């Protein structure tokens, strides 16, 4: 498959994945473009891999975790998020999810990446550890911390089926 065909077929999935990792549409677009521009020059090799998409997604995650991008993202401490609505109705449920999405964007980048890999990509903790270059226990602690933050800041998520 040519690079162009592959990007045409899988580009949408890459963008959606980058969105879940970055929680920012513009940053997701920049991440994917940046990684694909580098992938292009090595496509003859990458296309022969058993799972080129997994390779590219790992590259997106690692690009996302770089210090400079992290520091330029103006991430805010979770404590600064406004209180979530308490009433349990449809409107507040949507508001709760909006708040949860906003909070995702303010989580530490590594925690956000772990959540995206686990809950959006359905990857095992072992697979996530391989992508991030860390231990399975680190993956679990990162996920645990992220979910605890979400539960604490968005009570509505706890009432539902947040894992």
């Amino acid at each position: 498959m040519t690079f162009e065909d592959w990007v045409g077929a899988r580009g949408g999935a890459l963008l959606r994945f980058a969105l879940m990792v970055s929680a920012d549409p513009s940053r997701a677009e920049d991440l994917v473009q940046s990684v694909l521009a580098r992938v292009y020059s090595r496509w003859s090799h990458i296309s022969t891999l058993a799972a080129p998409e997994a390779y590219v997604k790992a590259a997106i995650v690692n690009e996302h975790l770089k210090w400079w991008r992290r520091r330029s993202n103006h991430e805010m401490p979770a404590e600064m998020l406004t209180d979530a609505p308490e009433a349990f109705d449809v409107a507040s449920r949507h508001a709760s999810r909006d708040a949860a999405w906003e909070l995702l964007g303010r989580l530490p980048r590594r925690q956000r990446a772990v959540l995206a890999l686990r809950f959006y990509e359905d990857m095992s903790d072992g697979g996530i550890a391989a992508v991030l270059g860390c231990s399975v226990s680190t993956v679990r602690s990162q996920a645990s911390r992220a979910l605890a933050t979400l539960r604490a800041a968005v009570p509505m998520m706890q009432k539902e089926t947040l894992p």
Partner: protein
Amino acid sequence: MTDLRELYERHEALVDEAHERLLPAVRVRVRRRRLSHRIGAAAAVLAVVATVGGVAVLTTAHRNMSTPLVPAHADQRPPAGYRIVSSLGMQVAVPNSWGLSSGCLQGASPMIALPDDGYNPFNCDQGAPAGKEFAAYEATYEDPGRLAGGSVGSVVSQTIAIDGVTATRAMAPVSGGRFIGWVYAPSRSIELIVRTNDQATLATILDSINLVEVDNAGCRTDISSGRPTPVDTSEFVDQHPVAISVCFYSTFTGDHRLIRSHRDAGASAEALVTVLNAAQSVVPSNCSAPPLVDAVLIIDRRDGSTQTVNASVSGCGVDSSLDNGRSYRVVSGAVQDEIDKARVPA
């Protein structure tokens, strides 16, 4: 399906439109890379041709071809009213009144833009406002005309040697009474583009350029591999340093190059070592690859020796780590804030 999965899926449409422009945008980035390489190679050839053809080869005062183990220009004195800035191994003097930017040339105030990851003047949404004076680092050749902000007049280009490295130095008037100039050193993959409102300032800036392997803050242009050499200290780092060099590196250019550096002494240096020594100990485990070093701290000790600490944000087995060669500490928020005082423009 978990609620979180549903949350993700509800937001997928945010990037629907981006799919259509993805491939064209990637092609533009690929073309830019290729163009940079081609122009770089062409500039190198032209430099040789110009030399052989008898065009005057200007040489700066510095011709040292050897690899310096100490800053080659640590004693470089900027002209009055100027200060030294360095990135990617190029030192330059800019007016004291110029600010420091992380890449984009936003606002009307004069500034020098460092090539922070993902941001450079050619990728920014807005160009430099008319009348703004600036200098901008590039890790590869970029067409200076794109930053000129007007029609470029006759270009006066010369082949020069800066610290033994062949480079192209060019100046040209720009419509509106401004001037643009640049120095490009293909073998070092670095270019500095400068736009000023008067020719004298432009010439002063271009004339001040040095190419170094250890910059004025004591930072190596290319990062050393491996863990730091341990030194004998009772704490994680020497509590009473003479000075600390903070060196920031990035891999966005395809290699691991010095982006920004800063040297602290006195109370600010002691404040930094205090938070380093207070950071929590940690033991990385199950590392599949060594951590990427984002910053190197070089601590000058009173006995004349130095201690090195590597700082990684995407460390192995931990969120982030400080490594003094013997043990690891966590990069706490306090540590990161203290280090960033050296990185973030005032």
